[in-house]
């Protein structure tokens, strides 16, 4: 408990410092804030356009316009949380290794992965988080089915699982920069993989879709990261099969496993770190 409190205090300090830093360069902050919002609105425009032409994504999948917007809102929240808390840090990790700045982190009496992961909070992504929340609430209102307290709690829990999955994949890739040096393509790779999860898993159908869906559910669990929490809100009472009941349980397992692998690889990477010559 004491440990947890201590880590939380450290994180709060990081968050505060980042906010002070962001507020020092306020115009820059505002530009980043607005620009990430414009991408979001552009995507929303695209989705609205799609639903001009189709009643639902896929036949009998239950993903109508507002169901899908609940999904998108959830996706936005999970992605922006991952982006806000970890993206800059993952990006920075390669730099810490290249310049040897990791030395200073290693000597501190706090867990290295914790320090490296949370040093900077990117507050300019907070706009996306709010838009995601707003979109989810608005779409739920249009659908007219409010979740029960239990569902809401489960929803929040699975959102955290989703963020943890995205985090683990991100730092799994970041940790490899100890061996590979700075590698920009890795992050593009992360971004592309994660973008597979931005749509309901039902769209991956057919000869290629099924293996694809299987792979990104059970091997690289990006599809469950967003699908499972979203399903709690929009399809809570309509499990299609026995399989659908098991998926939430599997998600917890997948989160734990991915995180454990990420943690293991990170520790391994630290052992291979040789500092930078200076």
């Amino acid at each position: 408990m004491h440990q947890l409190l201590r880590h939380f205090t450290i994180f709060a300090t990081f968050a505060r410092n980042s906010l002070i830093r962001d507020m020092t360069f306020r115009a820059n902050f505002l530009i980043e804030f607005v620009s990430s919002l414009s991408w979001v609105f552009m995507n929303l425009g695209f989705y609205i356009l799609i639903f001009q032409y189709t009643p639902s994504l896929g036949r009998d999948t239950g993903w109508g316009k507002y169901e899908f917007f609940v999904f998108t809102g959830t996706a936005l929240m999970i992605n922006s949380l991952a982006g806000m808390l970890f993206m800059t840090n993952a990006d920075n990790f390669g730099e810490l290794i290249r310049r040897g700045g990791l030395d200073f982190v290693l000597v501190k009496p706090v867990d290295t992965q914790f320090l490296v992961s949370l040093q900077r909070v990117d507050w300019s992504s907070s706009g996306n988080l709010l838009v995601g929340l707003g979109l989810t609430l608005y779409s739920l209102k249009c659908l007219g089915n409010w979740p029960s307290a239990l569902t809401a709690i489960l929803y929040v829990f699975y959102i955290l699982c989703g963020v943890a999955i995205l985090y683990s994949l991100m730092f799994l890739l970041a940790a490899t920069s100890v061996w590979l040096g700075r590698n920009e393509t890795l992050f593009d790779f992360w971004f592309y993989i994660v973008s597979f999860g931005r749509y309901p898993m039902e769209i991956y159908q057919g000869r290629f879709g099924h293996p694809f869906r299987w792979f990104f559910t059970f091997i690289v669990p990006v599809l469950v990261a967003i699908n499972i929490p979203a399903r709690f809100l929009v399809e809570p009472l309509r499990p299609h099969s026995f399989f659908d009941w098991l998926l939430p349980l599997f998600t917890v397992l997948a989160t734990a496993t991915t995180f454990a692998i990420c943690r293991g690889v990170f520790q391994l990477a630290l052992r291979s770190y040789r500092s930078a010559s200076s």
Partner: protein
Amino acid sequence: MLGTLMRFLPIVTQIFLWGAVFSALPSQNGAPGQIVGYSYHDVVAYYLLTMLSRAFSSMPGLASGITRDIRDGTIKRFLVQPIGLLEYLFFYRLAHKLVYYAVAIVPFAVVFYLCRGFFRETPQGLEWVAYVASLVLAFLLGFFLEATLGLLGFWFLEVSSFLFIYMLLSFFFSGHMFPIDMLPEPMASLVKLIPLQYLAYFPAAVFLGKIHGTALVTGLAIQAAWVVLFAFLAQLALQRGLRRYSGFGG
């Protein structure tokens, strides 16, 4: 090369997304549903073709490079060297594209071969000529448009916010994200008035036979007119800009 293959990854999601959209459409007299004249196969082919258009028209780092040269003074070497800035950049880009696509043609060919089933309509005879012409013009338009934006740096020094707006608009309105016929009126007509559609949408639509006859000829003429206009604007911006410009130190 892996990087080029990876750029096709987002298309995978698009293919499945549109597959889902089309599967929910009611069929019309037994035939599969269409959206503004595009069948599912057309849409997938369209995305692949816009990748190809963008390969010609996108100029990563051109505008920001020009502004950087203006800001840090590198640009003054063009005042004394016997070659103009625009000519130098043009041939530099041309060479760059040629070399890059000499390599990238392999992943492009692989992807197009694997997806050959999506191409129901291929151009015939003269349509090939029109298609190639529209791609070449797309390259020229992309170059002069970005060069003009970069040369605004003479007046503003930092143009990244202009560039951001340009990128945002071009992503949405060049047809990179979806065929712009799908926009509701009057948006669709307005978007067809601005030059962005010639960077991605127009060549792809020509290939798919969506535009033919007089519309094709006028389309190409308008595209060429935009190229001339932006070539002129870039020249003008360079001349006026150099008159304002003063280099210090070195």
